[in-house]
Protein backbone atom coordinates (compact mmCIF):
# COMPACT_ATOMS: atom_id res chain seq x y z
CA UNK A 1 0.00 0.00 0.00
CA UNK A 2 1.01 3.57 -0.55
CA UNK A 3 2.83 5.05 2.46
CA UNK A 4 0.79 7.71 4.21
CA UNK A 5 2.60 11.02 4.33
CA UNK A 6 2.21 13.60 7.04
CA UNK A 7 1.81 17.26 6.34
CA UNK A 8 -0.73 19.93 5.68
CA UNK A 9 0.04 20.90 2.11
CA UNK A 10 -2.69 20.39 -0.44
CA UNK A 11 -0.50 18.02 -2.46
CA UNK A 12 0.15 15.72 0.51
CA UNK A 13 -3.55 15.69 1.40
CA UNK A 14 -4.43 14.95 -2.21
CA UNK A 15 -1.88 12.14 -2.41
CA UNK A 16 -3.12 10.61 0.83
CA UNK A 17 -6.70 10.68 -0.40
CA UNK A 18 -5.84 9.44 -3.89
CA UNK A 19 -3.57 6.54 -2.99
CA UNK A 20 -4.00 5.69 0.68
CA UNK A 21 -7.13 3.62 1.23
CA UNK A 22 -8.18 0.05 1.95
CA UNK A 23 -8.49 -0.98 -1.69
CA UNK A 24 -5.91 -3.53 -2.78
CA UNK A 25 -5.23 -6.21 -5.40
CA UNK A 26 -7.30 -8.83 -3.58
CA UNK A 27 -10.28 -6.49 -3.34
CA UNK A 28 -9.99 -5.81 -7.07
CA UNK A 29 -9.83 -9.51 -7.83
CA UNK A 30 -12.90 -10.32 -5.71
CA UNK A 31 -14.97 -7.38 -6.91
CA UNK A 32 -14.06 -8.01 -10.57
CA UNK A 33 -15.58 -11.48 -10.35
CA UNK A 34 -18.57 -10.46 -8.25
CA UNK A 35 -19.25 -7.69 -10.76
CA UNK A 36 -19.26 -10.09 -13.71
CA UNK A 37 -21.54 -12.56 -11.90
CA UNK A 38 -24.02 -9.84 -10.99
CA UNK A 39 -23.89 -8.12 -14.38
CA UNK A 40 -24.48 -11.33 -16.33
CA UNK A 41 -26.64 -13.51 -14.12
CA UNK A 42 -28.48 -11.24 -11.72
CA UNK A 43 -29.06 -8.07 -13.72
CA UNK A 44 -28.40 -9.08 -17.29
CA UNK A 45 -26.45 -6.75 -19.53
CA UNK A 46 -29.54 -5.10 -20.97
CA UNK A 47 -30.88 -4.37 -17.51
CA UNK A 48 -27.61 -3.19 -16.01
CA UNK A 49 -26.86 -0.81 -18.82
CA UNK A 50 -30.29 0.00 -20.14
CA UNK A 51 -29.56 -1.00 -23.70
CA UNK A 52 -28.50 -4.30 -25.14
CA UNK A 53 -27.69 -4.30 -28.86
CA UNK A 54 -30.54 -6.70 -29.64
CA UNK A 55 -32.97 -4.38 -27.91
CA UNK A 56 -31.62 -1.46 -29.95
CA UNK A 57 -31.86 -3.40 -33.20
CA UNK A 58 -35.62 -3.71 -32.74
CA UNK A 59 -36.11 0.05 -32.91
CA UNK A 60 -36.90 1.54 -36.32
CA UNK A 61 -34.20 3.77 -37.79
CA UNK A 62 -36.57 6.71 -37.67
CA UNK A 63 -35.69 6.96 -34.00
CA UNK A 64 -31.98 7.21 -34.74
CA UNK A 65 -30.90 10.61 -33.47
CA UNK A 66 -27.93 10.19 -31.13
CA UNK A 67 -26.41 13.14 -29.29
CA UNK A 68 -22.75 14.09 -29.69
CA UNK A 69 -21.03 10.75 -29.16
CA UNK A 70 -19.38 7.82 -30.93
CA UNK A 71 -22.85 6.83 -32.21
CA UNK A 72 -22.80 9.71 -34.67
CA UNK A 73 -20.31 7.74 -36.74
CA UNK A 74 -23.20 5.42 -37.63
CA UNK A 75 -26.23 6.03 -39.78
CA UNK A 76 -28.73 3.84 -37.96
CA UNK A 77 -29.20 1.11 -35.41
CA UNK A 78 -27.34 -2.17 -35.98
CA UNK A 79 -29.21 -4.86 -37.88
CA UNK A 80 -30.35 -7.85 -35.91
CA UNK A 81 -27.48 -10.15 -36.97
CA UNK A 82 -24.81 -7.61 -36.00
CA UNK A 83 -26.67 -6.90 -32.77
CA UNK A 84 -26.69 -10.56 -31.77
CA UNK A 85 -23.00 -10.76 -32.69
CA UNK A 86 -22.16 -7.79 -30.48
CA UNK A 87 -24.24 -9.06 -27.57
CA UNK A 88 -22.58 -12.49 -27.79
CA UNK A 89 -19.18 -10.79 -27.96
CA UNK A 90 -20.05 -8.85 -24.81
CA UNK A 91 -20.91 -12.07 -22.99
CA UNK A 92 -17.66 -13.69 -24.13
CA UNK A 93 -15.71 -10.67 -22.92
CA UNK A 94 -17.43 -10.83 -19.54
CA UNK A 95 -16.50 -14.52 -19.41
CA UNK A 96 -12.85 -13.72 -20.17
CA UNK A 97 -12.92 -10.98 -17.53
CA UNK A 98 -14.29 -13.42 -14.96
CA UNK A 99 -11.32 -15.72 -15.45
CA UNK A 100 -8.88 -12.77 -15.50
CA UNK A 101 -7.66 -13.40 -19.02
CA UNK A 102 -6.02 -10.11 -20.06
CA UNK A 103 -8.41 -8.30 -17.68
CA UNK A 104 -7.18 -4.78 -18.33
CA UNK A 105 -7.72 -5.05 -22.10
CA UNK A 106 -10.95 -7.04 -21.76
CA UNK A 107 -12.59 -4.58 -19.36
CA UNK A 108 -11.57 -1.73 -21.65
CA UNK A 109 -13.28 -3.49 -24.60
CA UNK A 110 -16.38 -4.13 -22.48
CA UNK A 111 -16.51 -0.44 -21.67
CA UNK A 112 -16.21 0.54 -25.34
CA UNK A 113 -19.04 -1.79 -26.39
CA UNK A 114 -21.31 -0.65 -23.58
CA UNK A 115 -20.49 2.97 -24.37
CA UNK A 116 -21.49 2.40 -27.98
CA UNK A 117 -24.77 0.74 -26.94
CA UNK A 118 -25.58 3.58 -24.57
CA UNK A 119 -24.70 6.25 -27.13
CA UNK A 120 -27.07 4.61 -29.62
CA UNK A 121 -29.68 4.29 -26.88
CA UNK A 122 -29.56 8.00 -26.17
CA UNK A 123 -31.35 8.41 -29.52
CA UNK A 124 -34.55 7.77 -27.64
CA UNK A 125 -34.16 11.03 -25.79
CA UNK A 126 -33.98 9.32 -22.46
CA UNK A 127 -31.94 11.13 -19.86
CA UNK A 128 -30.71 8.21 -17.80
CA UNK A 129 -28.39 7.60 -14.90
CA UNK A 130 -26.41 4.74 -16.42
CA UNK A 131 -23.14 6.62 -16.43
CA UNK A 132 -22.15 5.40 -12.97
CA UNK A 133 -22.39 1.75 -13.99
CA UNK A 134 -21.17 2.38 -17.52
CA UNK A 135 -17.83 3.78 -16.36
CA UNK A 136 -17.23 0.85 -13.95
CA UNK A 137 -15.54 -1.50 -16.50
CA UNK A 138 -13.15 1.33 -17.39
CA UNK A 139 -12.32 1.80 -13.70
CA UNK A 140 -11.71 -1.94 -13.38
CA UNK A 141 -9.51 -1.82 -16.46
CA UNK A 142 -7.46 0.92 -14.86
CA UNK A 143 -7.33 -1.11 -11.63
CA UNK A 144 -5.93 -4.18 -13.38
CA UNK A 145 -3.48 -1.99 -15.27
CA UNK A 146 -2.20 -0.50 -12.02
CA UNK A 147 -2.11 -3.93 -10.41
CA UNK A 148 0.29 -5.06 -13.12
CA UNK A 149 2.37 -1.91 -13.38
CA UNK A 150 2.33 -0.25 -9.99
CA UNK A 151 0.40 -2.14 -7.28
CA UNK A 152 1.14 0.41 -4.56
CA UNK A 153 -1.03 2.97 -6.40
CA UNK A 154 -4.06 0.75 -6.87
CA UNK A 155 -6.01 2.79 -4.30
CA UNK A 156 -6.29 5.44 -7.02
CA UNK A 157 -9.11 3.46 -8.65
CA UNK A 158 -11.26 3.64 -5.52
CA UNK A 159 -10.67 7.37 -5.05
CA UNK A 160 -11.38 8.31 -8.64
CA UNK A 161 -14.56 6.21 -8.76
CA UNK A 162 -15.72 7.69 -5.45
CA UNK A 163 -15.19 11.14 -6.93
CA UNK A 164 -17.16 10.27 -10.10
CA UNK A 165 -20.09 8.87 -8.10
CA UNK A 166 -20.05 11.92 -5.84
CA UNK A 167 -19.97 14.15 -8.89
CA UNK A 168 -22.89 12.27 -10.47
CA UNK A 169 -25.00 12.84 -7.37
CA UNK A 170 -23.89 16.45 -7.23
CA UNK A 171 -25.05 17.03 -10.80
CA UNK A 172 -28.41 15.49 -9.86
CA UNK A 173 -28.75 17.90 -6.96
CA UNK A 174 -27.60 21.11 -8.64
CA UNK A 175 -30.51 21.50 -11.11
CA UNK A 176 -32.89 20.81 -8.23
CA UNK A 177 -31.29 23.63 -6.31
CA UNK A 178 -31.51 26.06 -9.22
CA UNK A 179 -34.92 25.01 -10.55
CA UNK A 180 -36.50 26.50 -7.49
CA UNK A 181 -39.37 24.16 -6.76
CA UNK A 182 -37.28 21.88 -4.54
CA UNK A 183 -36.31 24.77 -2.28
CA UNK A 184 -39.61 26.67 -2.43
CA UNK A 185 -41.38 25.81 0.78
CA UNK A 186 -44.89 25.81 -0.72
CA UNK A 187 -44.00 23.28 -3.41
CA UNK A 188 -43.34 19.65 -2.62
CA UNK A 189 -41.49 17.88 -5.38
CA UNK A 190 -41.22 14.54 -3.61
CA UNK A 191 -44.96 14.66 -3.01
CA UNK A 192 -45.47 15.12 -6.73
CA UNK A 193 -43.61 11.91 -7.48
CA UNK A 194 -45.39 10.10 -4.67
CA UNK A 195 -48.77 11.14 -6.03
CA UNK A 196 -47.82 9.97 -9.49
CA UNK A 197 -46.96 6.63 -7.97
CA UNK A 198 -50.07 6.33 -5.85
CA UNK A 199 -52.48 7.40 -8.54
CA UNK A 200 -51.55 4.49 -10.74
CA UNK A 201 -52.86 2.10 -8.12
CA UNK A 202 -49.67 0.24 -7.50
CA UNK A 203 -50.54 -2.93 -5.55
CA UNK A 204 -47.65 -2.53 -3.13
CA UNK A 205 -48.74 0.99 -2.25
CA UNK A 206 -52.21 -0.41 -1.56
CA UNK A 207 -50.79 -3.11 0.72
CA UNK A 208 -48.70 -0.56 2.56
CA UNK A 209 -51.63 1.85 2.82
CA UNK A 210 -49.45 4.41 1.13
CA UNK A 211 -52.27 6.08 -0.82
CA UNK A 212 -53.91 7.22 2.40
CA UNK A 213 -50.58 8.19 3.88
CA UNK A 214 -49.54 10.66 1.18
CA UNK A 215 -52.78 12.61 1.37
CA UNK A 216 -52.91 12.73 5.17
CA UNK A 217 -49.32 13.38 6.20
CA UNK A 218 -48.23 16.94 6.92
CA UNK A 219 -46.67 18.97 4.13
CA UNK A 220 -43.76 19.60 6.45
CA UNK A 221 -42.85 15.95 5.99
CA UNK A 222 -42.72 16.35 2.21
CA UNK A 223 -40.69 19.53 2.48
CA UNK A 224 -38.27 17.74 4.78
CA UNK A 225 -37.85 15.04 2.13
CA UNK A 226 -37.24 17.74 -0.52
CA UNK A 227 -34.48 19.29 1.53
CA UNK A 228 -33.08 15.91 2.58
CA UNK A 229 -32.78 14.89 -1.09
CA UNK A 230 -31.11 18.17 -1.97
CA UNK A 231 -28.64 17.97 0.92
CA UNK A 232 -27.87 14.31 0.34
CA UNK A 233 -27.20 14.77 -3.38
CA UNK A 234 -25.15 17.93 -3.03
CA UNK A 235 -23.05 16.68 -0.11
CA UNK A 236 -22.18 13.41 -1.81
CA UNK A 237 -19.36 15.14 -3.68
CA UNK A 238 -17.54 16.56 -0.62
CA UNK A 239 -18.14 13.20 1.14
CA UNK A 240 -16.22 11.47 -1.65
CA UNK A 241 -13.06 13.17 -0.43
CA UNK A 242 -13.22 11.41 2.92
CA UNK A 243 -13.43 7.65 2.58
CA UNK A 244 -15.14 7.14 5.93
CA UNK A 245 -17.87 9.66 5.16
CA UNK A 246 -18.27 8.16 1.72
CA UNK A 247 -19.06 4.78 3.26
CA UNK A 248 -21.80 6.39 5.36
CA UNK A 249 -23.18 8.03 2.22
CA UNK A 250 -23.22 4.68 0.43
CA UNK A 251 -25.54 3.31 3.09
CA UNK A 252 -27.67 6.45 2.81
CA UNK A 253 -27.69 6.07 -0.96
CA UNK A 254 -28.84 2.45 -0.81
CA UNK A 255 -31.68 3.42 1.57
CA UNK A 256 -32.43 6.37 -0.72
CA UNK A 257 -32.71 4.10 -3.77
CA UNK A 258 -34.91 1.71 -1.83
CA UNK A 259 -37.19 4.61 -0.93
CA UNK A 260 -37.25 6.12 -4.41
CA UNK A 261 -38.28 2.80 -5.91
CA UNK A 262 -40.99 1.90 -3.44
CA UNK A 263 -42.48 5.30 -2.86
CA UNK A 264 -41.69 7.14 -6.07
CA UNK A 265 -41.16 4.27 -8.50
CA UNK A 266 -37.75 5.45 -9.63
CA UNK A 267 -35.44 2.46 -9.77
CA UNK A 268 -31.65 2.60 -9.45
CA UNK A 269 -30.94 -1.08 -9.05
CA UNK A 270 -27.79 -1.03 -11.14
CA UNK A 271 -26.26 1.47 -8.69
CA UNK A 272 -26.19 -1.13 -5.92
CA UNK A 273 -23.65 -3.11 -7.89
CA UNK A 274 -21.46 -0.03 -8.33
CA UNK A 275 -21.49 0.67 -4.59
CA UNK A 276 -20.31 -2.88 -3.92
CA UNK A 277 -16.96 -1.77 -5.34
CA UNK A 278 -16.33 0.22 -2.16
CA UNK A 279 -17.14 -2.27 0.58
CA UNK A 280 -14.30 -3.69 2.60
CA UNK A 281 -13.54 -6.88 0.70
CA UNK A 282 -10.94 -7.90 3.28
CA UNK A 283 -13.87 -9.21 5.30
CA UNK A 284 -14.36 -11.95 2.70
CA UNK A 285 -11.10 -13.95 2.69
CA UNK A 286 -12.89 -17.21 1.82
CA UNK A 287 -14.37 -15.61 -1.27
CA UNK A 288 -10.88 -14.59 -2.35
CA UNK A 289 -9.44 -18.07 -1.87
CA UNK A 290 -12.36 -19.56 -3.82
CA UNK A 291 -11.82 -17.14 -6.70
CA UNK A 292 -8.09 -17.70 -6.54
CA UNK A 293 -8.70 -21.36 -7.42
CA UNK A 294 -10.47 -20.24 -10.57
CA UNK A 295 -7.46 -18.17 -11.55
CA UNK A 296 -5.27 -21.25 -11.23
CA UNK A 297 -7.20 -23.17 -13.88
CA UNK A 298 -5.45 -23.93 -17.16
CA UNK A 299 -6.00 -21.59 -20.09
CA UNK A 300 -8.04 -24.16 -22.06
CA UNK A 301 -10.39 -24.73 -19.12
CA UNK A 302 -10.70 -20.99 -18.61
CA UNK A 303 -11.60 -20.41 -22.26
CA UNK A 304 -14.15 -23.24 -22.17
CA UNK A 305 -15.90 -21.81 -19.10
CA UNK A 306 -15.65 -18.27 -20.45
CA UNK A 307 -17.56 -19.26 -23.59
CA UNK A 308 -20.17 -20.93 -21.38
CA UNK A 309 -21.15 -17.42 -20.27
CA UNK A 310 -22.84 -16.91 -23.64
CA UNK A 311 -25.62 -19.51 -23.29
CA UNK A 312 -25.85 -19.09 -19.53
CA UNK A 313 -26.07 -15.31 -19.74
CA UNK A 314 -28.49 -15.11 -22.63
CA UNK A 315 -30.96 -17.64 -21.18
CA UNK A 316 -33.29 -16.36 -19.83
CA UNK A 317 -31.62 -12.96 -19.83
CA UNK A 318 -30.98 -12.86 -16.09
CA UNK A 319 -32.92 -13.33 -12.88
CA UNK A 320 -33.59 -9.66 -12.45
CA UNK A 321 -35.00 -9.25 -15.92
CA UNK A 322 -37.26 -12.22 -15.20
CA UNK A 323 -38.35 -10.50 -12.03
CA UNK A 324 -38.99 -7.23 -13.85
CA UNK A 325 -41.15 -8.87 -16.49
CA UNK A 326 -43.36 -10.70 -13.98
CA UNK A 327 -47.02 -10.06 -14.67
CA UNK A 328 -47.92 -9.96 -11.00
CA UNK A 329 -46.81 -6.53 -9.89
CA UNK A 330 -47.06 -7.30 -6.19
CA UNK A 331 -44.74 -10.31 -6.41
CA UNK A 332 -42.40 -8.27 -8.60
CA UNK A 333 -42.26 -5.45 -6.09
CA UNK A 334 -41.75 -7.83 -3.19
CA UNK A 335 -38.89 -9.45 -5.11
CA UNK A 336 -37.34 -6.05 -5.71
CA UNK A 337 -37.83 -5.21 -2.03
CA UNK A 338 -35.90 -8.33 -0.97
CA UNK A 339 -33.20 -7.52 -3.50
CA UNK A 340 -32.85 -3.94 -2.23
CA UNK A 341 -32.90 -4.92 1.44
CA UNK A 342 -30.10 -7.40 0.78
CA UNK A 343 -27.89 -4.56 -0.46
CA UNK A 344 -28.92 -2.20 2.33
CA UNK A 345 -27.89 -4.90 4.82
CA UNK A 346 -24.51 -5.27 3.08
CA UNK A 347 -23.81 -1.54 3.23
CA UNK A 348 -25.00 -1.37 6.84
CA UNK A 349 -22.61 -4.18 7.77
CA UNK A 350 -19.89 -2.42 5.85
CA UNK A 351 -19.96 0.65 8.12
CA UNK A 352 -20.20 -1.43 11.28
CA UNK A 353 -16.55 -0.91 12.18
CA UNK A 354 -16.80 2.83 11.53
CA UNK A 355 -19.96 3.03 13.63
CA UNK A 356 -18.38 1.17 16.55
CA UNK A 357 -15.32 3.43 16.48
CA UNK A 358 -17.39 6.59 16.14
CA UNK A 359 -19.72 5.50 18.91
CA UNK A 360 -16.74 4.84 21.19
CA UNK A 361 -15.31 8.23 20.32
CA UNK A 362 -18.60 10.01 21.08
CA UNK A 363 -18.99 8.06 24.31
CA UNK A 364 -15.45 8.95 25.32
CA UNK A 365 -16.06 12.63 24.55
CA UNK A 366 -19.33 12.65 26.46
CA UNK A 367 -17.91 10.87 29.52
CA UNK A 368 -14.91 13.21 29.39
CA UNK A 369 -17.25 16.19 29.39
CA UNK A 370 -19.24 14.71 32.25
CA UNK A 371 -16.12 14.21 34.36
CA UNK A 372 -14.94 17.73 33.62
CA UNK A 373 -18.33 19.12 34.68
CA UNK A 374 -18.21 17.10 37.89
Amino acid at each position, binding site marked *: MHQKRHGNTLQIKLDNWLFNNDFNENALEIFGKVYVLFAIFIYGIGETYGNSFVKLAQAPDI*FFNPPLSIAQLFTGFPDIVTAWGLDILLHVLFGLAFFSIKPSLVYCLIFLLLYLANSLGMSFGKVNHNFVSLILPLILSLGYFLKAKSPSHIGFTKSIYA*FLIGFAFFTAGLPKLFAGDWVAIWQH*SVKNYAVNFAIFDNPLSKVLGFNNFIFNVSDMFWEFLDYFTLGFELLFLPAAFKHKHFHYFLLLASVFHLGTYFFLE*IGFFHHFLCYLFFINWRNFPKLYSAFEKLNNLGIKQKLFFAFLFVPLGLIPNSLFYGLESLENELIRNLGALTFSLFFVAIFAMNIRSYLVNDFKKIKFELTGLWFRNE
Partner: protein
Amino acid sequence: MTSLKYQIKVKVILRRLFLIILVFCFLAYLSYYSANIYSDIEEPYPFPTLPGFGTAPKYQNKVHNATVYFKEDALLKDSLKLTAIFEEIPKNAWNQVLKHEFIGKNPETKEWLQEHYQIGRYDYAFYVMDSCFLRLNQIKCIKKDTVILFK
Protein backbone atom coordinates in the same frame (compact mmCIF):
# COMPACT_ATOMS: atom_id res chain seq x y z
CA MET B 1 10.07 -1.44 -12.43
CA THR B 2 9.57 -0.73 -8.76
CA SER B 3 12.33 1.80 -8.28
CA LEU B 4 11.56 4.94 -6.33
CA LYS B 5 11.93 7.03 -9.48
CA TYR B 6 9.34 4.88 -11.26
CA GLN B 7 6.95 5.09 -8.31
CA ILE B 8 7.18 8.87 -8.23
CA LYS B 9 6.61 9.04 -11.97
CA VAL B 10 3.46 6.92 -11.71
CA LYS B 11 2.22 9.00 -8.81
CA VAL B 12 2.70 12.25 -10.73
CA ILE B 13 0.89 10.85 -13.79
CA LEU B 14 -2.06 9.64 -11.70
CA ARG B 15 -2.26 12.89 -9.79
CA ARG B 16 -2.38 14.81 -13.07
CA LEU B 17 -4.95 12.39 -14.43
CA PHE B 18 -7.19 13.09 -11.46
CA LEU B 19 -6.83 16.84 -11.89
CA ILE B 20 -7.63 16.55 -15.60
CA ILE B 21 -10.75 14.48 -14.82
CA LEU B 22 -11.77 16.97 -12.13
CA VAL B 23 -11.47 19.98 -14.42
CA PHE B 24 -13.04 18.13 -17.35
CA CYS B 25 -16.05 17.03 -15.30
CA PHE B 26 -16.83 20.51 -14.06
CA LEU B 27 -16.24 22.22 -17.40
CA ALA B 28 -18.23 19.63 -19.33
CA TYR B 29 -21.10 19.84 -16.88
CA LEU B 30 -21.12 23.61 -16.83
CA SER B 31 -21.19 23.81 -20.61
CA TYR B 32 -23.90 21.16 -20.81
CA TYR B 33 -25.93 22.78 -18.09
CA SER B 34 -25.77 26.27 -19.47
CA ALA B 35 -25.95 25.53 -23.19
CA ASN B 36 -28.10 22.48 -23.55
CA ILE B 37 -30.37 21.55 -20.73
CA TYR B 38 -32.77 24.45 -20.95
CA SER B 39 -32.52 25.01 -24.68
CA ASP B 40 -36.07 23.74 -25.21
CA ILE B 41 -37.54 26.34 -22.94
CA GLU B 42 -38.37 29.69 -24.44
CA GLU B 43 -38.04 31.63 -21.24
CA PRO B 44 -34.90 30.72 -19.31
CA TYR B 45 -35.01 29.84 -15.67
CA PRO B 46 -34.08 32.52 -13.21
CA PHE B 47 -30.53 31.45 -12.54
CA PRO B 48 -29.76 31.08 -9.72
CA THR B 49 -33.08 30.96 -7.93
CA LEU B 50 -33.43 32.03 -4.34
CA PRO B 51 -35.50 29.94 -1.96
CA GLY B 52 -39.12 30.94 -2.25
CA PHE B 53 -38.83 32.15 -5.83
CA GLY B 54 -39.77 29.05 -7.74
CA THR B 55 -40.48 28.81 -11.43
CA ALA B 56 -43.77 27.01 -11.07
CA PRO B 57 -45.97 29.78 -12.56
CA LYS B 58 -44.01 29.39 -15.78
CA TYR B 59 -45.05 25.76 -15.98
CA GLN B 60 -48.62 26.78 -15.48
CA ASN B 61 -48.35 29.17 -18.39
CA LYS B 62 -46.63 26.74 -20.65
CA VAL B 63 -48.62 23.57 -20.30
CA HIS B 64 -51.89 24.89 -21.67
CA ASN B 65 -51.19 23.34 -25.07
CA ALA B 66 -50.79 19.86 -23.69
CA THR B 67 -53.73 17.62 -23.07
CA VAL B 68 -53.32 16.78 -19.44
CA TYR B 69 -55.69 14.59 -17.50
CA PHE B 70 -55.71 13.97 -13.80
CA LYS B 71 -57.42 10.99 -12.34
CA GLU B 72 -58.77 12.88 -9.38
CA ASP B 73 -59.75 16.52 -9.50
CA ALA B 74 -58.58 16.89 -5.95
CA LEU B 75 -55.05 16.75 -7.22
CA LEU B 76 -55.49 20.01 -9.02
CA LYS B 77 -55.35 21.73 -5.68
CA ASP B 78 -52.17 23.17 -4.25
CA SER B 79 -48.96 23.19 -6.15
CA LEU B 80 -49.33 19.66 -7.43
CA LYS B 81 -50.98 20.78 -10.63
CA LEU B 82 -47.86 22.72 -11.46
CA THR B 83 -45.50 19.81 -11.39
CA ALA B 84 -47.53 16.61 -11.59
CA ILE B 85 -48.17 16.51 -15.29
CA PHE B 86 -48.91 13.27 -17.00
CA GLU B 87 -51.33 11.68 -19.35
CA GLU B 88 -53.93 9.10 -18.88
CA ILE B 89 -54.89 7.53 -22.16
CA PRO B 90 -57.44 4.90 -23.13
CA LYS B 91 -56.47 1.46 -21.92
CA ASN B 92 -56.38 -0.15 -25.35
CA ALA B 93 -54.01 2.47 -26.71
CA TRP B 94 -51.92 2.18 -23.58
CA ASN B 95 -51.53 -1.56 -23.98
CA GLN B 96 -50.60 -1.22 -27.61
CA VAL B 97 -47.83 1.22 -26.93
CA LEU B 98 -46.53 -0.69 -23.96
CA LYS B 99 -45.69 -3.57 -26.24
CA HIS B 100 -43.02 -1.42 -27.83
CA GLU B 101 -40.36 0.20 -25.78
CA PHE B 102 -39.55 3.27 -27.76
CA ILE B 103 -39.15 6.88 -26.99
CA GLY B 104 -39.19 9.37 -29.77
CA LYS B 105 -37.99 12.86 -29.61
CA ASN B 106 -37.86 13.35 -33.36
CA PRO B 107 -40.82 15.00 -35.01
CA GLU B 108 -40.96 11.95 -37.30
CA THR B 109 -41.93 9.85 -34.31
CA LYS B 110 -45.37 11.31 -34.64
CA GLU B 111 -45.73 9.80 -38.11
CA TRP B 112 -44.50 6.44 -36.92
CA LEU B 113 -47.01 6.40 -34.08
CA GLN B 114 -49.78 7.63 -36.37
CA GLU B 115 -49.01 4.86 -38.79
CA HIS B 116 -48.93 2.15 -36.18
CA TYR B 117 -51.33 3.27 -33.51
CA GLN B 118 -53.64 5.74 -35.22
CA ILE B 119 -52.86 8.47 -32.75
CA GLY B 120 -53.56 10.97 -35.48
CA ARG B 121 -55.26 13.58 -33.41
CA TYR B 122 -52.07 14.48 -31.63
CA ASP B 123 -49.12 16.42 -32.94
CA TYR B 124 -46.50 14.87 -30.71
CA ALA B 125 -46.27 11.69 -28.74
CA PHE B 126 -43.58 10.69 -26.33
CA TYR B 127 -43.32 7.32 -24.76
CA VAL B 128 -41.21 7.21 -21.64
CA MET B 129 -39.52 3.98 -20.60
CA ASP B 130 -38.34 5.23 -17.26
CA SER B 131 -38.99 8.23 -15.11
CA CYS B 132 -36.74 10.95 -16.33
CA PHE B 133 -36.17 14.63 -16.45
CA LEU B 134 -37.27 15.36 -19.96
CA ARG B 135 -37.35 19.05 -20.68
CA LEU B 136 -39.39 19.09 -23.82
CA ASN B 137 -42.34 21.40 -24.01
CA GLN B 138 -41.93 22.35 -20.41
CA ILE B 139 -42.95 18.97 -19.07
CA LYS B 140 -41.01 18.52 -15.91
CA CYS B 141 -41.83 15.17 -14.37
CA ILE B 142 -42.87 12.19 -16.39
CA LYS B 143 -44.06 8.94 -15.01
CA LYS B 144 -42.56 5.65 -16.11
CA ASP B 145 -44.37 3.97 -18.99
CA THR B 146 -46.29 7.12 -19.78
CA VAL B 147 -47.38 8.41 -23.11
CA ILE B 148 -47.50 12.14 -23.35
CA LEU B 149 -49.65 13.47 -26.13
CA PHE B 150 -49.62 17.04 -27.34
CA LYS B 151 -52.12 18.83 -29.46
